[in-house]
């Protein structure tokens, strides 16, 4: 990836983070921590990888993305707005009674949202289904998904892992947002999901391990995923919960806590947007 491209993506990621802290502050609730950890992944997918058309969100055979960890909705909303699926102005209406932007994404309300998610563990199975549906139709579209590390404690994730591995869904590429924090504490303290590479490999997946905030690493991993012919790919992305905001980084409290107006000022300063 050329330096200029890297800078373009980094600027989009910065804008997405500004939108995430602004919208959760305006809502007074929401999940900023796990949204901020996924920003580079979503930025890369929507601005570099996915073949889709914001003017025709239902276009046949398009690439699809499923946010299995539905509480990362602020990140998805920010990216979809920046990509042109809907006006950025409505982002600050997050979680309001008259807004399409619910606390968790609903596909029937928001252009560009491929599946309604929020009850953890189900999005990966839905993504599998999309990959299977495309394969049955002979469509070349690829399917991407993002799961959480806490979400990986759900049994359905492993049912879906077995399905995708067994059916050799090589048109499927999944990211694990591995920030090691869940609501009640560290994932490694609550119910550790390690060793994660060995688990996914045992389910017959191609596994890539990367720094989830490094665009070049994301690009290399996605390219390797595209070259697979016999396996789905799991990209284990090591991330920082609350990434980019000094007082939120690695702080479990900001899983489901919005910044106050005072904190928003600090956050915007951190993002050079004050």
């Amino acid at each position, binding site marked *: 990836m050329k330096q200029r491209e890297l800078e373009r993506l980094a600027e989009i990621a910065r804008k997405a983070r500004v939108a995430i802290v602004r919208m959760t502050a305006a809502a007074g609730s929401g999940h900023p921590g796990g949204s901020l950890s996924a920003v580079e992944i979503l930025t890369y997918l929507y601005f570099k990888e996915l073949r889709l058309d914001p003017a025709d969100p239902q276009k046949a055979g398009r690439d699809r993305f499923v946010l299995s960890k539905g509480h990362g909705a602020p990140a998805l909303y920010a990216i979809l707005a920046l990509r042109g699926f809907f006006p950025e102005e409505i982002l600050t209406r997050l979680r309001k009674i008259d807004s399409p932007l619910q606390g968790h994404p609903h596909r029937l309300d928001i252009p560009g949202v491929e599946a309604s998610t929020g009850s953890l563990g189900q999005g990966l*199975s839905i993504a599998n289904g999309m990959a299977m549906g495309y394969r*049955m139709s002979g469509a070349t579209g690829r399917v991407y998904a993002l799961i959480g590390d806490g979400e990986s404690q759900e049994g359905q994730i492993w049912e879906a892992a077995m399905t995708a591995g067994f059916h050799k869904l090589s048109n499927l590429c999944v990211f694990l947002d591995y920030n090691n924090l869940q609501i009640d504490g560290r994932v490694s303290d609550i119910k550790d999901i390690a060793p994660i590479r060995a688990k996914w490999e045992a389910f017959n997946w191609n596994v890539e391990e990367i720094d989830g905030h490094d665009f070049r690493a994301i690009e290399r991993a996605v390219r390797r995923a595209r070259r697979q012919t016999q396996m789905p790919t799991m990209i284990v992305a090591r991330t920082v919960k609350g990434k980019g905001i000094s007082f939120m980084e690695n702080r479990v409290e900001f899983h489901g806590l919005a910044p106050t107006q005072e904190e928003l000022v600090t956050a915007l300063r951190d993002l050079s947007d004050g």
Partner: protein
Amino acid sequence: MVKESLRAAYGKTLLQLGQADKRIVVLDADLAKSTQTIIFAKEISDRFIDMGLAEQDMVSTAAGIALTGKIVFASSFCVFLAGRVFDQVRQSICYNNANVKLVGTHSGLGVGEDGATHQSLEDIALMRTLPNMRIIVPADAVETAQAVQCAAAMEGPFFIRLTRGNLATVYDGGYRFALGRASVLKDGDAITIVAIGAMVEKALQAAEALAASGITAAVLNLSTIKPLDGETLLRFARKTRGFVSIEDHSTRGGLGGALAEFLGQNCPRPLRIIGVEDQFGRSGTPEDLYRHFGLTADRVAAAARAILQQ
């Protein structure tokens, strides 16, 4: 009396639908021989997926496949398809309004010898609470075939509840199933008996017994539980002195529950709900179980007489 398999009718209809329409995809969870999706699987293997013993994954996967433009049927026993995976049905299918048809077999006490763990007595109650879901409980093989065709032709989620055992034929080839319309099997002006599935036969027997003592009972097959046919129910509420319902399901939240909600708010009438009363089933032959739990024609007739004597 001729008895036919609803499950076989389902499998055969699926195959016909699949041969005519490439969008039809069928999923099962290691019960293809029991649910009879095997009939489809043998002929159209590239559009059949056995998901193994993973009902949660099957239901959400069905939603994903449907979101790519397919018409997806997913089958298992009712106890798993509605109960075990309720949240997946709620979120992956109904909230997404995915074009998935859940066809559950082995409903209620009719499962028989496998016992309480496999007898779904709550599935109608659960499915009835879900927005976008439509529920059909066919009374025989003819109605099963038409219900399955109807579900395939209409966009959106369906739950079709089938029995394990063969059921007496209620309809001939001239029958036309219509979603949301009760089928009046027998007209009458004294009392209205409402039944679903395997209990339709018992309702007809009860009506015969009542006729012998000069009581003309109407018999409705309310095969579409949701959306409810309020128009027909109102007509019989005005015409007769009360209702007796019978279902192979809990007395709470199923057919009787739907009637109580509707009649109570629109045209209150005496109502006796016959079903399994707040308990689990047990092993036995279906007929022994129906007698043990009081799901009999005699009890329907007695309930009708009790209302008329009020």
